[in-house]
């Protein structure tokens, strides 16, 4: 069985009087260690797909299994636990807690998951920061960091629970091209270490680096040849 297996996903939003089909009978499989880019214009449904695979949202119809967990039917507790320890999210706008230091942000999934003692959490947090080359910025607040550094802190947060899957939703969207490239390289390095990677992007140059490229338009997907 594939690591991520989506079949017949449907999700409809109502915007004003209009019904928008964000996902229209989407089926997709992702193997362990894969690196796929989901691209498409804004409003095409790519974020919805990412959110469904990431357990933040549930489809109206269809099934989504990740690592044997049936996300379409899971209850809040199971979904939350899945988000907490099975996957890591990286967002366009970093989504760091502004009042917390880099380290505190990184260890927040451990705190929420009630993992270990404070000391153990800090050790794991420092290790994650080391992996993204920011151990010297541990006590900095997000406002004291550059955009690229913030996104690397967000990646460290996504890593801290040793997830098997990282979902990055427009991770370079708020960065200039050189910092964006750093972040993508960072993510690629993690993928090389065996972490499955799903990147949502509308940047063709980012998508081009993926092993597989999934294009989504009006809620329907089509696959293009990727870098592999």
């Amino acid at each position, binding site marked *: 069985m594939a690591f991520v297996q989506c079949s017949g996903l449907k999700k409809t939003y109502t915007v004003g009087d209009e019904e928008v089909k964000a996902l229209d009978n989407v089926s997709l499989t992702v193997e362990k260690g894969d690196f796929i880019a989901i691209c498409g214009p804004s409003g095409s449904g790519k974020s919805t797909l990412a*959110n469904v695979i*990431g357990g*933040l*949202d549930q489809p109206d119809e269809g099934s989504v299994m990740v690592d044997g967990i049936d996300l379409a039917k899971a209850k*809040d*507790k199971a979904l*939350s*636990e*899945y*988000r*907490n*320890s099975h996957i890591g*999210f990286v*967002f366009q706008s970093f*989504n*760091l*807690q502004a*009042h917390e230091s880099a380290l505190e942000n990184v260890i*927040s*999934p451990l*705190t*929420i*998951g*009630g993992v270990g003692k404070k000391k153990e959490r800090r050790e794991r947090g420092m290790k994650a920061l080391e992996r993204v080359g920011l151990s010297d910025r541990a006590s900095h607040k997000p406002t004291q960091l550059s955009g690229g550094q913030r996104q690397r802190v967000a990646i460290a*947060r996504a890593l801290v629970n040793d997830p098997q899957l990282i979902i990055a939703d427009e991770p370079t969207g708020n960065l200039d091209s050189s910092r964006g490239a750093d972040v993508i390289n960072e993510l690629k390095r993690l993928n090389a270490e065996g972490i499955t990677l799903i990147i949502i992007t509308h940047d063709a140059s980012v998508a081009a680096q993926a092993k597989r490229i999934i294009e989504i338009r009006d809620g329907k997907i089509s696959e293009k040849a990727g870098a592999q």
Partner: protein
Amino acid sequence: MKFSDQFRTGWRNLSRQKLRTSLTIFAIVIGAVSVTVMLSLVTSAKSFLVSSAEKTGMDKRVIVTGTPGLDYRESQWNWPDGSGKKIDAEVLAAVQKVGNIESATLYVTSNMFDSYVVDGREMTMKNVGVEGYTPNGTIKHILVAGAELSDAVKGSGILISSDLASDLGFKGKEAELIGKDMTLRYRKDMGPPEAKKSDEKAKIVGVTMSEGGSMMSVDLEWSVAMQTMTWQENSGPNGQQSTRTESQVDRNGYSSIWITVSNKENVDAVLADVQKLGYGAAAGKEEIDTQATAFTIIGAVLGGIGGIALLVAAIGVINTMVMATLERTREIGIMRAIGATKKTVRRLFRVEAGVLGFMGGLFGVLVSFGFAIGLNQVLNKQLEDSGIADRDIVSISPQIALVVLIITTLIGMLAGSLPARRAANMDPVEALRYE
């Protein structure tokens, strides 16, 4: 999420909005102080009442009158006008045969006097009763200065209540009155002109704490003598002179008999036994109970007012927490994205609100203790001035403090429930998009 982490996070979030948090806590402090102080004042007043009553023996007292059905207060001020059964030495003897009696005395009040003179200062005796009783320990006063009546001062010793001492200008220095001579002047309208009595000479032996009325106390025999008038009158057709004696006590009897029951538990038995003899009997403990009940009601009303303050504070907590959920929408989204369950988010906000309530309660209780210390200093001065030995009569009971602390915490958590639920039920995807 562990509770310690929830508490830490809640505390941290609160300290991010110091002013708002302080104001919300301040509102709870006001509520907590009102409830604590008001309830404590009432319980303190109640225990002061009970301890004072115990000092005068009121809790073990039964007053017997010739009129069944009078309550304690009415019995205390009973005035024999011939309408009830006559109280005299025979009745006393009968009553003394009833079991469980420690001591008893006939009791009579009179208002024979127009004025009294101390140090050449004449004061009118309007509304001043003169009580007479056998000084055998049945009747006890709370003494501000001097001593109780005793056989040694029979026929001359007099006690005056502290308000009279104040009238004489001896407030706070009542002790200086002890040993002073006092002249009591009879009313002009007592009996026929021939019966005009000469002034009574008394010596002040004690100043008693005023119990709501102006009172002088003398021994029974002297009191009876005061109320007895003797004069010569022409009684025959031939103008023979004869001595006529008229005594109010002989005519109408004594006011009452005051009993000290051997043990508080036996008061009801004594009441029943005396009533069986056909006389009215009322117990001091009924009066204490009545007053204690009144205090309880006052306490409930005042506590209720404090409760309203707490309720308003609770609305403040709701307001603060609703604001917090709005401000932290995105944070909530992030927390949910990295694995916080709805329950975790709900608890986080509830704990935060609980911390508000707890802090408010804690400061409220501390302020109340401070208030009690301050109030006691003022009251102690007053008590000292009035010559009363009691000190620190206002006390905040630890039980009340603990209950207030628990209640404010619960109120905080309860008030936080609604905003907490709101926060927990936010759609994480929407929350993450929130700007």
